[in-house]
């Protein structure tokens, strides 16, 4: 038996097929979920993929957050089901208050697409167990609204509880993908909830799973093997 991992398609989702491919390459079974269905088709985990759901109109993730599928995702996430939000998915998770803080427009006001260097800060979540804490990886980043913002109190809490999952590596050469790409507070690239089952990040691990395409690296694969191991061993 392998794990079934759902990938939600919202209107305007873009990286949903790519995420399904990454799940397949990791050895799990991708299951397409539709935003209008509350039914999660008995999946073991859910990924909210990247894209511009509802065109990112109003605010990124703000409209999708109210879709029928999210009612179930919110409910299930609260009772422990692993949920990963990538880029637009991360934005949906903050809008749904499954993760604290909010995403704002990049401080340079442009879309940015590059192979970004990250440090794994928390290798204990459902989605990061195959990394080592402190490991530095390159994962493609591509977004308009990637600036993570929260109040000081929340930021301190995230740090104290080890809930900053990924940070942008800021020392080193820009040509090597270093530097805070969007003005995110405390260089935060991704965070987790208290239980470690819900993780959101801006960069796109599903575009770093094959040497031939995308960034040409495979640094993103451990996201999908982490969750697979967890689910199969569960």
């Amino acid at each position, binding site marked *: 038996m392998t794990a079934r991992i759902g990938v939600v398609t919202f209107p305007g989702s873009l990286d949903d097929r*790519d995420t399904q491919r990454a799940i397949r390459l990791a050895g799990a079974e991708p299951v397409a979920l539709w935003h209008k269905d509350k039914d999660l088709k008995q999946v073991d985990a859910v990924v909210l993929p990247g894209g511009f759901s509802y065109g990112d109109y109003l605010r990124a993730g703000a409209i999708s957050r109210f879709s029928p599928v999210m009612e179930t995702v919110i409910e299930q996430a609260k009772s422990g089901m692993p949920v990963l939000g990538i880029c637009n998915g991360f934005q949906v998770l903050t809008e749904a208050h499954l993760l604290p803080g909010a995403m704002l427009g990049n401080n340079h006001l442009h879309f940015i697409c590059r192979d970004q260097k990250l440090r794994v800060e928390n290798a204990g979540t459902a989605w990061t167990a195959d990394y080592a804490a402190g490991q530095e990886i390159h994962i493609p980043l*591509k977004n308009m609204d990637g600036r993570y913002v929260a109040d000081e109190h929340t930021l301190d809490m995230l740090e104290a509880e080890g809930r900053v999952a990924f940070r942008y590596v800021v020392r080193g050469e820009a040509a090597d993908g270093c530097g805070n790409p969007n003005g995110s507070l405390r260089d935060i690239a991704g965070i987790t909830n208290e239980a470690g089952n819900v993780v959101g990040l801006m960069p796109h691990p599903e575009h770093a799973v094959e040497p031939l395409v995308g960034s040409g690296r495979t640094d993103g694969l451990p996201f999908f093997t982490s969750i697979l191991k967890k689910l199969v061993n569960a």
Partner: protein
Amino acid sequence: MSRTPLDTVENAAATPDVELPWAELGLKKDEYERVVEILGRRPTGAELAMYSVMWSEHCSYKSSKVHLRQFGEKAPQSDALLVGIGENAGVVDVGQGYAVTFKVESHNHPSYVEPYQGAATGVGGIVRDIIAMGARPVAVVDPLRFGAADHPDTKRVLPGVVAGIGGYGNCLGLPNIGGEVVFDACYQGNPLVNAGAIGVMRHEDIHLAKASGTGNKVILYGARTGGDGIGGASILASETFDDAKPSKRPAVQVGDPFQEKLLIECTLEAFAEKLVVGIQDLGAAGLSCATSELASNGSGGMRVTLDDVPLRDSTLSPEEILMSESQERMCAVVEPEKVDRFLEICDKWDVIATVIGEVTDGDRLEIFWHGGKIVDVDPRTVAHDGPVYERPYARPSWQDALQADDANKLPRPATGEELKDQVLRLVSSPNQASKSWITSQYDHFVQGNTVLAQPEDSGMIRIDEETGLGVAIATDGNGRYAKLDPYAGAQLALSEAYRNVATTGAKPLAVSDCLNFGSPEDPAVMWQFAEAIRGLADACQQLGTPVTGGNVSLYNQTGDVAIHPTPVVAVLGVIDDVARRTPVAFQEEGQLLYLLGDTHEEFGGSAWSQVVHDHLGGLPPKVDLERERLLAEILISASRDGMIDSAHDLSDGGLIQAVVESALQGGKGARLIVPDGLDAFTFLFSESAGRAVVAVPRSEELRFNDMCGARGLPVTRIGVVDGTESEAAVVEVQGEFALSLTELRTAHEATIPALLA
């Protein structure tokens, strides 16, 4: 002025003396008389609206048609061509049952008025052309031209255009895999915003724009229709017919990429279920174009009830509805029993869809409004029988003087120090500098199949995961060359794009073009246009790459001053296994650098003459298509057989520009030796065509040399890849100068952000 209730066909027949504002709608007197002759009566307002937009330069190609014919007449025999010129986009067989469609279009003028929206809707339009062929769009490219880099208006236009292309393309989920950015004062008031798209489908999924099968339904779906882009029609509506109407009609369209993304998904789902008989996107001339083209390409006629068109603005007149260019709309012809399913799919994607008519067994296009028949025409006369002009053309009087002003006579650098200084000026000049500030605003990862993207020589997309089948595309065009000699300039544009595709290891298959010129009413411009087409058609014939479609943009001029003639050429190629692609970046220290091809003293129109002397004169580099073909064959074989690890074609900026780019991308230095028989300056800066630099692993040296020798391609060893950036590597020309990668990187990468950020 009171309005007659409705200008029906009946009414028009009964009131032959009513004067219609044909001149305001852009028709010439004889064109209007031709309409009257075709109809055997005066047209109704709605008919006049249709004829006037469909017979415009933009839709009818009336000035360019007589020349464009050469692309068909001289078309090389090619088994790869599945659908040729005349459809929304050409279709090329790339093997394994896959077909690829691609096309480039211009959105120049709107992008000057409103850079963001103009560029965004340009992407939207070209993508709908691709969907209309039955294909899933897989990538976009954007050849761009702007005024001088340091002109204040460039700072308004460029960032808006780039944000618009990115805003729309990124939101659609289409990777941007290539394009161009060129600055020249001649584009100051006429930036060129060309956008291209590629789509992939199975052979059996090719769809055409035709309405056949009596009783089949015509479905309009997508955005509601508003008063966009109907300048002419509002004259018709307000002056002749109803003065009380609001005259405010937007001159600029606003794009809704989210709506278009839904349109793509629901169209592809309908294709997959075989629900669609014929399909047409709505672009220029909106419903006028879609209905008349669908009807005239099919076997029957068509009846349309305009009242059923969903409107965004309820005050629109029927003439305006027919002419509206509202974005994000498509028109499908569907068998009656499949209509419900089609509507269901639209509903699933929250796309508004409405049956607005049906295919009839006659051969007339009839359109109704409020119960009256307002259009009754033979659709062919609207769509295909537009006027054709043989515009006068003449070689301009200044051409000789321009060509006599020989760039080879310009003062050249005399010392190593001067050479070094000019290399730095070259690689940091706006046209040769890194465009990553621009291209990093485009998503090139989405869809997970991007093998190569900018700044590679061509973009490459994997289309089959199992076999690694892929396609490559490059777009090129050098307006400076074309100004010096439009015939050769067009051939050089093709040569360069062809070479760029081959450099990555793909075999060039077919061509699309976007021909950007000044006013066709100027005989000098018309000569440039005629020469460019003749050059391109001749060269396509010789290289065996048919032109599958394209776009003409005329009237790109400010007052009497036209832009440089700018034929932009896109070449599509195929590669059996993308794992064999060749990148630009140097891969490994110690690999040997070879220059393929011949280097002559050719500086006319060169980047060096522009950057160092602000000069444009002389002749462009000599065209040698047989050499291009041989070079391409060698590059493709070498890539397939693993003989080269990196390759970069030589074009503007010459050899030094190419070597610096490969070095910076790979983070590796290079040591170069000026070959016997060449001086350092010519070696570094000449822009002779038909050349590339390749890096060969030492183990392959013999095999590679033998192959070139056997096939008769000149090959010269010019140096070696040496040193890594982290250890202070340099690009050195022995006995002349050395520049550190750090210094080169700063020079190459700082220019554009400094101008625009």
